[in-house]
């Protein structure tokens, strides 16, 4: 187990290295002078020269890379071109809404999707199953922001049940905080629910054909216990792994959902940086999100041993 853990943790290093290299090369391989791209269209030659010197773009590329990696390892993500603040500070200020939205979305999606998937596997081939699968394909097809505007249109504008946009920190009261997260969560979780429900259905369906399920039925175990203890437990590994892989979807979705609902999180930070061409910020957010994705999937891999004791490393 210890050796497996060490091996699995070490295996994330080359992937992180590749991510860092790609992010580094993106700017250097872009067509034209990177300093001029960052400075914008109306920049003076002095401003371009200043940016070039500040980012070390006048040095040989290998020196730039070594210095850049060195700074990364010290937790330095660079400085914003627009606000001149360290990127880590900017990220720190915007972390809370994003974490809050991601947490509520994952919780809500799992609570809804897993029972739906089990239900449609159990009632395989019936209208329930077809209904759940149809909703799942629909969930894959509607752009996240269109869904967000649909919710705003129906629930906030027509019914006026919930506030349209904005964010309130949980320190200022739990209900105002939660109230403004309901629609974003409903928006962002749809595609995640579609994905998890589909995989849950497929893997439970596969397990339901196993001999031990028939044995459990034969010895008189109740339907509910068979589904939860015997079927779901054994189908857990693919479900947990798709929750991990789906984090990629969630991250892209966060960026969009935050702009629709005006949540001041990392997604808004990214979109504002895109509009202002503030590349150091974009770069920092990409590195942070990629690292989060890699680490969450590391945790998922390790969790297999808990969900399926047959897996021994």
């Amino acid at each position, binding site marked *: 187990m210890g050796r497996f853990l060490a091996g699995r943790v070490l295996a994330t290093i080359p992937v992180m290295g590749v991510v860092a290299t790609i992010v580094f090369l993106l700017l250097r391989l872009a067509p034209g002078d990177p300093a001029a791209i960052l400075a914008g269209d109306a920049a003076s030659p002095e401003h371009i020269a200043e940016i070039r010197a500040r980012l070390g773009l006048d040095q040989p590329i290998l020196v730039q890379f070594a210095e850049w990696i060195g700074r990364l390892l010290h937790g330095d993500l660079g400085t914003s071109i627009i606000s001149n603040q360290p990127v880590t500070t900017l990220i720190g200020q915007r972390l809370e809404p994003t974490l809050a939205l991601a947490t509520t979305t994952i919780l809500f999606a799992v609570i809804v999707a897993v029972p739906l998937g089990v239900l449609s596997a159990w009632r395989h081939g019936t209208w329930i199953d077809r209904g759940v699968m149809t909703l799942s394909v629909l969930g894959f097809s509607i*752009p996240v922001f269109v869904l967000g505007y649909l919710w705003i249109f129906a629930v906030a*504008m027509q019914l006026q049940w919930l506030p349209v946009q904005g964010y309130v920190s949980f320190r200022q009261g739990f209900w105002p905080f939660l109230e403004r997260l309901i629609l974003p969560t409903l928006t962002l979780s749809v595609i995640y629910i579609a*994905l998890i429900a589909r995989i849950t259905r497929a893997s439970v369906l596969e397990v339901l054909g196993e001999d031990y399920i028939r044995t459990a039925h034969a010895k008189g175990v109740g339907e509910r216990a068979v589904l939860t203890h015997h079927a779901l437990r054994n189908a857990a590994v693919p479900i947990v792994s798709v929750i991990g892989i789906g984090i990629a979807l969630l991250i892209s979705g966060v960026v969009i959902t935050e702009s629709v609902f005006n949540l001041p999180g990392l997604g808004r930070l990214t979109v504002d940086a895109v509009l202002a061409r503030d590349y150091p910020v974009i770069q920092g957010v990409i590195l942070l999100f990629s690292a989060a994705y890699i680490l969450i999937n590391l945790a998922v891999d390790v969790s297999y041993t808990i969900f399926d004791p047959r897996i021994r490393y």
Partner: protein
Amino acid sequence: MSAPAEPFIAHEMAADLPDVRRARALWRNPGVVFGVAVLLIILLLAIGAAYLANVDPILLRPRFRLRAPSAIAWLGTDQFGRDVYSRVLFGARVSLFIGFAVATIAVVAGLIIGLVAGYLRLLDAILMRVMDGVMAIPNILLAIAMVTLSGAGILTVIVAIAIPEIPRVARLVRSVVLSVREEPYVEAAIGVGTPVPLIMWRHILPNTIAPLIVQGTYTCAAAILTEAILSFLGAGIPTEIPSWGNIMAEGRQSFQIAPWVILFPGFCVALTVLAVNVLGDGLRDMLDPRIARGMDNLQ
């Protein structure tokens, strides 16, 4: 060389019959029929956009700002008085083109990388680590960064959407290559000294076609969605081109008074992507039950 040639020909001829049967079965699959029908209609609308449109899609008419859908402006007008119906028609061209172009680029590039990785063990580890790295970067963010750096343009957007899709195709092709390599007929071909390019062309490539058609369909759906998202976020194709994403981006400020500017193009995106997805699911059931939707097919 000549000795094993005859049984191979016999084998190929025998294999033709189920293929024909499979092609007929395709048209009995409701998903395939629905997907093809919807896509054909949208394709016809896109081709005939110039004839079907009521007014010039980029014509600014300040006096007709934010009009609700009516007999004159079927889907209403946007904040500059442009006709949403006409813009949506022209937007179909952009979306279909981007979906098709991205799927083609991703499939061709992924096929080459997958074949090389599956066949040359030396490059496999390196190529697959690079693919893992690309997949670890959320695709919208990677595309955003590329568009920000290279400037908005249709070609940039196509490349920026295609690159994050390549690893999925490459992994798929590689897994097919690895499993087909173990087949007796490939071992036999290696045994009689068939050159590697010929083995690739005749024995390995045909096995990748069915999964690639299915994967290409999913890639096309993902590309249409991603274009809409990128343009909506302001990192997509130039704003003067009426793409579905651009039309919706223009509707953001005025959503609470003119929701139709976002909802109609949004419906078009959803319907098109749904048609492509359903078509892909139908094709997968028919052609290649091995690909499970979901695990490796995230957008």
